[in-house]
Each structure stands twice: as structure tokens, then as C-alpha cells.
């Protein structure tokens, strides 16, 4: 997330809008955005409906046993087609902004 914020101007330059999604309440996301200085949108999927539709539910993995999202990234083009996916196998290993930017360059405006 911090990596995305750092590269946000590069993302904007190539025309990519990063969007974060979790089960956090909008207020919690606002807190996080303010504390960490994140300026891209954060969406709140309270009941993990969208997370379920994307098959990303990590069942009962929340702090009080609620269903949450596993980490995952999708690059979607303007027609709504998935162009790149990262489903990490290890929680501590994440996609780097450079990887996404590389693919983003190949998308059409």
C-alpha cells in the first residue's frame, strides 16, 4: 500500500487508478488514509460480498473471527477485462508497483 502511494504519480501518469478494498468500515479506512497519507480511494466491503464474488475470502481470519480478504491485486482495463492478477502464495510477499506499471503500459487508453 505504501509502495502504491509512493508510485501514485506514476500510476496516474499511465492512467491507472489504484483502489484498495477491505472489510474495514469507511471510518476505519479514513483513519488509515489520514495516518498513512494514502490519497487513492479505499472501499469498504463490510460483509465481504465483493470479496466473496472475487473468491478472495479468508474465512474466519479476522481478529474476532470474521471473514476477511486475502491479499490480491487485479489490473482491470477500461472495458472491465482482467489484464493481470497477483494472488500471492505467501502473505509477506507482495506485488511491486514496477510490475504493475510494466503491464499498465501495454493497456490502451
Amino acid at each position, binding site marked *: 500500500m505504501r509502495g502504491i502511494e509512493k508510485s501514485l504519480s506514476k500510476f496516474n501518469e499511465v492512467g*491507472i487508478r489504484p483502489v*484498495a478494498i*477491505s472489510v474495514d468500515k469507511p471510518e*476505519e479506512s479514513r483513519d488509515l488514509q489520514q495516518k498513512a497519507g494514502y490519497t487513492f480511494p479505499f472501499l469498504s*466491503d463490510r460483509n465481504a460480498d465483493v470479496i466473496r464474488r472475487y473468491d*478472495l475470502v479468508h474465512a474466519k481470519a*479476522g481478529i474476532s473471527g470474521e471473514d476477511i*480478504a*486475502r*491479499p490480491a491485486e487485479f489490473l482491470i482495463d477500461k472495458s472491465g477485462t482482467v489484464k493481470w492478477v497477483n494472488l500471492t502464495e505467501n502473505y509477506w510477499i507482495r506485488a511491486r508497483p514496477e510490475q504493475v506499471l510494466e503491464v499498465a503500459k501495454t493497456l490502451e487508453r
Partner: protein
Amino acid sequence: MNTKRLNWPLWLGFLLPLGAFLSYFFIFIWFPFTRDFPWANLLLFVIAVVLLFMGLRRGFASDRPHPIRSKIVSSIVSLLSLVVIALFVFTIFIGGRWLPASKGAPQVGQRAPEFSLPDSSGKTVSLNELLTTPINGNAPKGVLLVFYRGYW
């Protein structure tokens, strides 16, 4: 002869793994280079193991002022440190892999399921809006959806 009595390699070998454990989550996690593979922390653990080994040798030396106490203390301290190291290796390399397979997740070439969700100001936005609202006056090329666990 205070320097001879204080088993400094042992205590350094005890503190170092604690520092190495915590530093991953508070420092090294912020840099992809040290996060994706915790080589910095593993290096610190290797140094700690060497120190603990030196500490154990000192602890078991015959010239200690309290030989029995010294043996017990150095053994317990070394064992605790090894537990910290094991816990770290477990958390990163085994615990980190406890993720659902997500076989049904949208794949490259498929359509991303449409959705509408409230943003952090409570305003509902759809994927379609995210894909069409201009960025700095230009039509976007696309959207990067980043799903994450949540803030806690």
C-alpha cells in the same frame, strides 16, 4: 573482574533475536527488498546464534564464579533465543502461506465482476465509475484493485 563475569556474548545473543524479530514488522516490512525475503533478519539471527554459542561456551567454562548457575542461565537464555528464531521462521515461511487458494478468482482475460461499494467518505462508487472517472483530466486506462486484510 567484572568483564570476565559478565557473559556478554550470551546476553547480546539474547537481545539480538528479539530485535531482529521486531525489526521485521516495524522496519524491514516497509521495503520490498527486505520484506519479500527477510534476509536482513536471518543475517541477524545467524550472528545471534554465533554469539549464543560463544555465550554457552563461556557459561560452561570451568572458571565461572558460579558454575552451576552459569550453566543453567546460559542454557535457558540460549533456548529462549532459539524459540524466538523458530517463531520468526515459522511466522514468515509457514504462517505466511496460510492463505486460501482462491481458484475461483477472476483470471486474465475474464471480465472483472461489477460492484458498488462505499468509499471512506461513505459515498458509493461502482467499478464502472472507477474505470470512467477521469484521472487528472484524462480518461483512465484501467483500475488496480488491491484487496487487503484490513486495518488492525
